[in-house]
């Protein structure tokens, strides 16, 4: 069975599941092969660990990640708000290596050859794979905001939408801002990474300013026509906790910036801020975008929901923020972790000549802090639907918090500890 060629396997068609089970209850013989994973974030680290765990070490896994440690975007708004440190959101790759036997290479992947099934590393050399998983996250479309399309501008007008050096730099800008200053954050048109994230950041910056620089203002310049997530809960927090401090402006897309004067240029208006935090529109990470995979809207990778495999390119699975999302599915770390497990299960089946699980399920839980202690959530469960060939949100399930509360603030930190461990411990 393991030696069965793909075309033979495909001929078996609908009977494949039954045939496969002739070879044992536990998913057939132990899978083997080499899987290369590109990107060690919420998606990539999870798929690497779960491939090793579920194959009981039978599948070799190489993870290529450009950063020396994992730094979490979730909880990073608390670093910007001043109640957590970078150390609190940084996790080592050591357990992936020593406990799970994942080969971790700190490098960049510069090219993928889907025909030869190889990838090229920036430092030189090629790696061959039986299956490739791309979990590259997003890259920014700086060209959409011409004034930001150079390194000097990007070091002054920050996005801090990838946790790391920019998280620290944005915190420093806020610390340096005078009392009575204005912090403005722009939200790109959906879909973007972490739908509630900008609104959470506005809250946590306001929480800091309220204590230390109470004459200051926070302005949200949203390209969308309304708040994109947890609207009632966020607007209530703004009214209850930050009245007169947080101002929300819809339909306010940042089209350009004037870097010298820290000014956001909107379609009919301009907005000058002391700290200007522009989150540019984004698309699938560069390596996915330039590997010849079919994209939707020229931005997001089109995937098969039973396997996370590219619809255009066999052998390449794409997970996390880089994909074109299923209906109502957010681009979140939690969801990327779920994609990682879906992909791991499918890859192990495929490596041993079986069809992927025909009925995958993924779910999302997302907490947002509205001040230093209180949080709110949104949750959803998505089940595979054969008619639309996509995972669809289950009606009547999921929802948001009844009200902000401290218990969910504790749950948010508990969630972080567990998901980081689920990926990396």
């Amino acid at each position: 069975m393991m030696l069965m060629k793909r075309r033979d396997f495909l001929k078996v068609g609908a009977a494949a599941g039954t045939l496969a089970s002739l070879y044992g209850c536990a998913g057939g013989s132990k899978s083997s092969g080499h899987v290369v994973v590109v990107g060690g974030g919420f998606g990539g680290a999870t798929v690497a660990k779960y491939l090793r765990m579920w194959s009981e070490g039978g599948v070799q896994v190489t993870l290529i990640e450009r950063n020396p440690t994992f730094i979490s975007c979730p909880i990073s708004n608390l670093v910007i708000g001043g109640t957590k440190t970078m150390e609190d959101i940084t996790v080592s790759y050591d357990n992936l290596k020593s406990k799970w036997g994942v080969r971790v290479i700190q490098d960049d992947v510069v090219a993928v050859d889907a025909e030869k099934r190889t990838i090229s590393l920036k430092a030189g050399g090629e790696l061959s794979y039986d299956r490739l998983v791309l979990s590259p996250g997003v890259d920014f479309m700086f060209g959409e905001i011409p004034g930001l399309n150079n390194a000097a501008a990007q070091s002054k007008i920050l996005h801090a939408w990838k946790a790391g050096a920019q998280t620290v730099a944005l915190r420093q800008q806020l610390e340096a801002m005078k009392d009575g200053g204005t912090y403005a954050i722009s939200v790109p048109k959906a879909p973007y990474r972490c739908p509630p994230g900008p609104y959470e950041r506005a809250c946590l910056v306001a929480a800091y300013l309220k204590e230390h620089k109470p004459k200051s203002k926070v302005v949200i310049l949203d390209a969308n026509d309304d708040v994109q997530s947890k609207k009632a809960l966020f607007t209530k927090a703004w009214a209850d906790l930050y009245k007169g401090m947080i101002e929300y402006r819809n339909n306010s897309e940042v089209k350009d910036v004037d870097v010298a004067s820290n000014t956001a240029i909107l379609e009919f208006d301009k907005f000058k801020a002391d700290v200007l935090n522009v989150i540019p529109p984004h698309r699938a990470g560069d390596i996915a975008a330039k590997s010849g995979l079919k994209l939707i809207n020229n931005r997001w990778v089109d995937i098969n929901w039973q396997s996370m495999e590219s619809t255009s390119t066999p052998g390449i699975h794409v997970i996390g923020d880089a994909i074109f999302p299923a209906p109502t599915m957010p681009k979140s770390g939690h969801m990327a972790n779920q994609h990682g497990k879906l992909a791991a299960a499918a890859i192990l089946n495929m490596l041993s000549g079986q069809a992927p699980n025909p009925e995958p399920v993924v779910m999302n839980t997302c907490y947002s802090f509205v001040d230093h202690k209180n949080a709110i959530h949104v949750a959803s469960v998505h089940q595979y639907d054969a008619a639309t060939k996509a995972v669809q949100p289950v009606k009547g399930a999921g929802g948001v918090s009844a009200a902000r509360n401290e218990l969910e603030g504790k749950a948010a930190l508990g969630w972080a500890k567990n998901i980081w461990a689920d990926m990396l411990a």
Partner: protein
Amino acid sequence: MKLHAHLAALCLLATAGASHAADPNLGRNLAATCANCHGTNGNAVKGSGMDALAGMDKAKILQKLADFKSGDKPASIMHQISKGYSEAQLDLIAGYFAGQK
């Protein structure tokens, strides 16, 4: 081949009720959707405040889930999440966690 066919019948029987031609690892895969909060294989991080489900009695897990679904057990989030899974799926999930150490 006869033995294999017999084994296959047992396998199919074991997963019957979940769905037609279900993946033999369906319980494992479904339980993994809970691991983000409840820990890999139900081993929640100690001191994280999340319920560790590994090795918990299957009937106890199912009762908790039923109470979340019905609203009998007050919850901040589990009443919303439990409703996203079918009874057959919850049965597989509970069975998987009960079998973990």
